[in-house]
Structures are given as structure tokens and as C-alpha cells.
């Protein structure tokens, strides 16, 4: 018991310290490395919060996507000499603001104290919706409560989240122009690593998708893993030979929300309510949506990392 509390206190203080460093380190690269470490500690915190589903998502996103995304952006910023702002670049308003920085602590401390007080004064025992989730779990088609909430009880939330993902990619495509060309030919070690790891990542993604119906895992975790595999392949210099206008690419990108909407329409016809699956088909419907969503999430994340519209060219042999 004492050890557990010690672990929690050390982890909590570590989170706060690492976050502080990630936000206020003088060097932006240093800040990003601290932010990567922050994601790792967050995954441990989710484990301690009895939320292995979230820990899986945080691990896949944090280790596979966020770090690479930030480092790639930093490299592009350095190319246009904007990797760092020195105080000399800061305007007068900014400098005057720096002087009043100390005063900023007062309202922020008051806010933090207020929020802390609010947290402490909440009633200790609040079952929330766990009783309802448990009562309806049998009819949901899956036995992992988190997957049941995501794809059955609050399916429309998840549907709209998938649309948000798609919008982020479309926003990037419309602003960023064509993707930067692949960097030089990958070293043999990197090439071999990407060839060896990618099939394994696909396998583990399929495993997480499958196991997600009854244990921690599911479409978001599996999709994030697929996205990470895409990041690795892009870094190794691989490019799929599809342009952003290719039908195949667009079909996979929209498969998640598309299948979800189709199922919603199907359930509207069958039971008169959107996304109210007939219990007999619930399991299989959820699995179909999850497979489509996994593919869309993975491709969207990889596309976001690409940093522009795909040009439609193949890796030169």
C-alpha cells in the first residue's frame, strides 16, 4: 500500500516536473524531448488509473506519432529559420509583457487553487454511469465496456470523431500543398528495420482490434498503430503510388465514417432509431465498423504526418 502510494506520488510529481520542462525549456528541441517523455509518463498514469485502454492509445500515439510529428515540424521550421524565437525577435509589447509575467502567477494560482478545491470538494463516491454500462453490456454485442461505450452506447460521438479526423486531413491538404519529397535513400539498417517492423505492427494492430471486443484494445488503438507503421514507412522513404485524388485513397480514408453512416442508416431501417443495433447483429456490426474505422484512422494519421498532399510517386528502386 505504501509502495503504491509512493509510486503514485513519484509519478505525479514527475509528470508536473516534466511538463514544466516541456513548456519552458530554453531550447525547443529539448522541450520536445521532454514532451515525448511526458507522453510516456502519461501512459503509466493511465495504467495506475485502471484505464489500460487509454494507456494503449497513449502509447501508440505518443511513441509512434506525436514525437515524429513534432520533430518533423521542427526540422521544417528550422529550414525557414523559425525554429526558435530569441528575445531580440520579440516585439515591444512582448517585452513589456515579460515584465508583467510575475503578476500572471496571481490569477493562475487562484485559478489552480479554485480548481483544486473543486476537485477536493466533490463527493467521494459517485458511480457515474458505470451501473447503466454494466446493465446494458450484455446487449451491446461486446464485453469490453469501453468498446461498448465507444461503438454502441455513444456511437454517434465516435462517428463524429472520425469525421473530425477526416476534416483535419482535408484541412491540411487544402493548405499545405504537395508533400515534401522523401529525404535521401534510407540507410540499410533503417530500410531493414522498416521492412521487419511493419508486418509485426500490422499483426499487433489486428490483434488489438480483435481483442478489443472483450479486453483493452479496439479501433482507435489499432488505428494509431497503423498510423505509426505509416510514419515509419514514410521516414524510411517509402511512398505509396497514389495521388490525393486517387479513388482508392479516398475510399479508405472515408471507410470509417462511411461504414458507420451506412450502419446507422441500416439500424434506422431495422429498429427505427439511428445506431440502435439489433442485439443479435450488434457484435458483427461493431466489428465491421471497427475494421473500417481502424483503416481510416491509420491512413489519416499517416497522411497527417506526410505533411502535405501525396504526390503519387513511387520510391525509386
Amino acid at each position, binding site marked *: 500500500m505504501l509502495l503504491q502510494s509512493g509510486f503514485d506520488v513519484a509519478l505525479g510529481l514527475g509528470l508536473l516536473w516534466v511538463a514544466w520542462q516541456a513548456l519552458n525549456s530554453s531550447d525547443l528541441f529539448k*522541450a520536445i524531448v521532454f514532451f515525448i517523455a511526458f507522453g510516456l509518463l502519461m501512459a503509466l498514469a493511465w495504467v495506475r488509473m485502471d484505464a489500460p485502454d487509454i494507456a494503449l492509445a497513449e502509447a501508440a500515439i505518443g511513441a509512434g*506519432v506525436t514525437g515524429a510529428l513534432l520533430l518533423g515540424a521542427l526540422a521544417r521550421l528550422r529550414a525557414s529559420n523559425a525554429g526558435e524565437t530569441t528575445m531580440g525577435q520579440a516585439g515591444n*509589447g512582448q517585452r513589456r509583457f515579460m515584465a508583467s509575467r510575475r503578476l500572471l502567477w496571481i490569477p493562475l494560482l487562484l485559478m489552480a487553487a479554485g*480548481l*483544486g478545491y473543486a476537485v477536493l470538494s466533490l463527493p467521494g463516491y459517485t*458511480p457515474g454511469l458505470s451501473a447503466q454500462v454494466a446493465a446494458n453490456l450484455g446487449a451491446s454485442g461486446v464485453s469490453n465496456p469501453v468498446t461498448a461505450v465507444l461503438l454502441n452506447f455513444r456511437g454517434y460521438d465516435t462517428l463524429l470523431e472520425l469525421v473530425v479526423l477526416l476534416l483535419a*486531413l482535408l484541412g491540411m491538404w487544402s493548405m499545405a500543398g504537395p508533400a515534401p519529397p522523401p529525404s535521401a535513400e534510407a540507410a540499410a539498417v533503417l530500410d531493414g528495420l522498416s521492412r521487419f517492423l511493419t508486418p509485426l505492427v500490422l499483426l499487433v494492430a489486428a490483434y488489438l482490434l480483435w481483442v478489443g471486443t472483450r479486453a483493452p484494445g479496439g479501433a482507435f488503438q489499432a488505428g494509431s498503430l497503423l498510423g505509426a507503421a505509416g510514419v515509419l514507412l514514410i521516414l524510411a522513404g517509402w511512398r505509396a503510388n497514389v495521388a490525393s485524388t486517387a479513388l482508392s485513397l479516398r475510399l479508405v480514408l472515408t471507410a470509417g465514417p462511411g461504414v458507420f453512416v451506412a450502419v446507422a442508416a441500416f439500424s434506422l431501417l431495422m429498429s427505427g432509431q439511428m445506431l440502435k443495433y439489433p442485439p443479435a447483429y450488434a457484435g458483427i456490426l461493431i466489428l465491421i465498423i471497427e475494421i473500417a474505422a481502424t483503416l481510416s484512422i491509420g491512413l489519416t494519421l499517416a497522411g497527417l504526418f506526410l505533411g502535405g498532399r501525396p504526390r503519387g510517386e513511387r520510391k525509386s528502386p
Partner: protein
Amino acid sequence: MNAAVLYALVGVGLYSLGLYALIVHAHLVRKILAINVMGSGVFLVLVALARRGGEAGTDAVPQAMVITGIVVAVSATALALILVVKLAAETGYATLSGNRQE
């Protein structure tokens, strides 16, 4: 004080640190990091408070919200980073115009 309250307080701390950094730093990548830390703080509060169910078990609804939240946060971050990259390519600065000398 049990673990749930401890982590909820850490979440409040993260949110406050993030808000501070969001206000004081001009560099937009730092602002993006700050928003991400604030988001993590909110997620932590949500999930920590979902653990007060006792024997009824952990509430799965906030957990599901946080999972989608993490994936949406990373895609929003990617979009924001591309905006900053484009801004820097056009202007040579990764800060908003009010925060720099012209």
C-alpha cells in the same frame, strides 16, 4: 487522500502550467505544446474522477471520451503544426504578428 484525488490534482496542476505557458510564450510550437499539456490535464481529471465508483467499478464513459480525445488531439496538433510551418515559410516567423517587431 486516495490515488484518484491525487491524479485529479496533478491534472489541475498540468492544466494550470499549460495555461501559463500558453500565455507567456510567443513561439507557436510552444503554444501547441501548452495546449496539449492542458488537454492531458483535463483528460487526467476526467478519468481520475471516473474512478470514484467504488465496487461499481470504473466508469467507462469518460474513458471512451478520453480515447477519442487523444486521437483527435493528435490530429488537431498535426493540423496546427502544418499551419505554423506554412506561416514560417511565408513570413520567416513562427509567432503571431502581434508578438514581433515589424
